[in-house]
């Protein structure tokens, strides 16, 4: 079994969640690597798509921001922000989009905080804010979330609900007026978490090699069902080769 880092495992686990034909909304960092890798691993006709308006970028080098000039090269269309978010809010195209995003906090229903820790009017810690995350979470068919598995990040209630997940549970999104889509998976440095289709609550879908369900629970501030957990296959040599040699040879994101 080849050696690999936690970040590499995360990127591969996310790439495997992408289906052929998906339109993949990428944020900055590891989500871009996952989308780049997916095109070589399992989803050759998935489309890499940025909120900045770039459609199907030819990523010869890994971008360091969604507005990096590298996303503008060889695209089908270089649209505007207004165009890109309309693709996601549009029912025909939006349901085909899978959004990949990170956050500072997540709750059992996949609601995300990327705005503040503490009180909004007097925050203890201020983050970047929503960017396009709230929009993507509101509109698209499916979202995949990257998180570090830590107690302070997996919380009962987020300090600020930036990006709507399943809100308070079944039927809540429809009631509020959001799309029928929602969080499908959380990929952490330890595990793959899913959301129960009945309760919309997070559960442990699988542990990364060498990780126990107990470790998962120890790193969260709320309980999740661990009964359905299975071990996730480690990255194959081919998957690692693609990630390291094709996607990020300079290890700009992987390090």
């Amino acid at each position, binding site marked *: 079994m080849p050696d690999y880092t936690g970040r590499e495992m995360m990127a591969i686990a996310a790439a495997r969640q992408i289906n052929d034909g998906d339109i993949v909304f990428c944020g900055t960092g590891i989500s871009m690597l996952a989308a780049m890798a997916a095109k070589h691993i399992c989803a050759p006709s998935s489309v890499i798509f940025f909120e900045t308006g770039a459609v199907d970028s030819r990523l010869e080098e890994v971008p360091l921001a969604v507005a990096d000039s590298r996303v503008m090269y060889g695209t089908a269309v270089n649209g505007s922000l207004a165009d890109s978010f309309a693709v996601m809010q549009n029912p025909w195209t939006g349901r085909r989009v899978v959004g990949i995003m990170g956050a500072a906090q997540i709750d059992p229903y996949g609601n995300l905080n990327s705005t503040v820790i503490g009180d909004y009017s007097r925050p203890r810690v201020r983050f970047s804010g929503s960017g396009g995350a709230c929009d993507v979470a509101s509109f698209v068919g499916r979202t995949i979330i990257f998180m570090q598995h830590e107690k302070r990040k997996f919380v009962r209630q987020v300090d600020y609900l930036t*990006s709507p997940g399943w809100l308070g549970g079944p039927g809540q999104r429809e009631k509020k007026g959001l799309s029928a889509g929602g969080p499908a998976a959380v990929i952490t440095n330890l595990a793959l978490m899913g959301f129960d289709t009945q309760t919309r609550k997070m559960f442990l879908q699988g542990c990364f090699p060498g990780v126990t369900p107990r470790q998962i629970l120890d790193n969260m501030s709320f309980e999740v069902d661990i009964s359905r957990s299975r071990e996730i296959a480690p990255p194959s040599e081919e998957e690692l080769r693609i990630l390291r040699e094709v996607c990020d040879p300079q290890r700009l994101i992987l390090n």
Partner: protein
Amino acid sequence: MNNAEDKLLDLTAAVRRYVTDGCHLSIGGFTINRNPMAAVYEIMRQRVRNLHLYAHSNGQGVDELIGAGCVAALEIAYAGSGRFAPTCIRFRKAVEAGTVAVEDYSNYQMTLRFLAGAMGLPFLPTRSALGSDIIKKWGFRASRRKSDPRLPNHKLVVIDNPFEGWGNAQRLVLVPAIQPDVTILHVQQADRQGTVRIEGLPFTDVEQAKSARHVIVTCEELVATDRLREEPERNQLPFFCVDAVVPVSMGAYPTACYRHYDYDPVYLNNYRQAALDDDRYPDYLDEFVYGVESHEALLDRIGIDQLSRIQADPRTGYAVGLDRR
């Protein structure tokens, strides 16, 4: 906004005329690309104060203006500079210290707010953020909003769909228009009249410009009108939307300008180190902003060696193989 044939102005004069203390300013670009940095540095040098700043996901420009103490209030979706600063550092410090008032929106909401201004509408609808704290929590209090005629009375308004479920929507968020006093863009090409051509992604620059009362365009190249008009499909902003045209070579530096130059990882990493250290930050400002008299002088200080490293490859539009660690 006028049609005068010649709108050429130098940067000092353009900023002095349109960017006044307390004005509502919007700047183009996105994170580390096509920020109008030459204009941002000039605003800092002119010590403009109490700006009300609007951006969607503007990273470097917003952070520098805040760092220099130019900004009193900020309406924004995202303050980050990609891998160089996932959260803009002087922004974070100012918000945590309570020295800048912030109102949060999503990126699409900010886009729609500029678009509403450009369209001459008081608001536009979206389904984004229903059920979120972006709707529930206001940065600017209701009392502040009511007392300032330049702010809408509500951050956002949620309404039931008057078309009763048409479009499969029960409820919509209305986002209020922005009409800045002035918008500043940095673009690849413009002519003396003010017609603008942006290459690569336009971001929300076009809507930001059309929503504003006055528009300053800094450009890499001043191009003959006839040349721009050979391919009007590639032009985005008609001259009657623009007030001042200011040619500034490398005017987005240290952010990128597609097909001209890349962002400068050395400058941005150096900036991050300085921004993180409250003691060092005034030295950064003295050395790179106040201590140079113009953008040209800043570029001289950076030096031709570093600038040549970030020159764009003609095939890809960025600096292939640039060391970006």
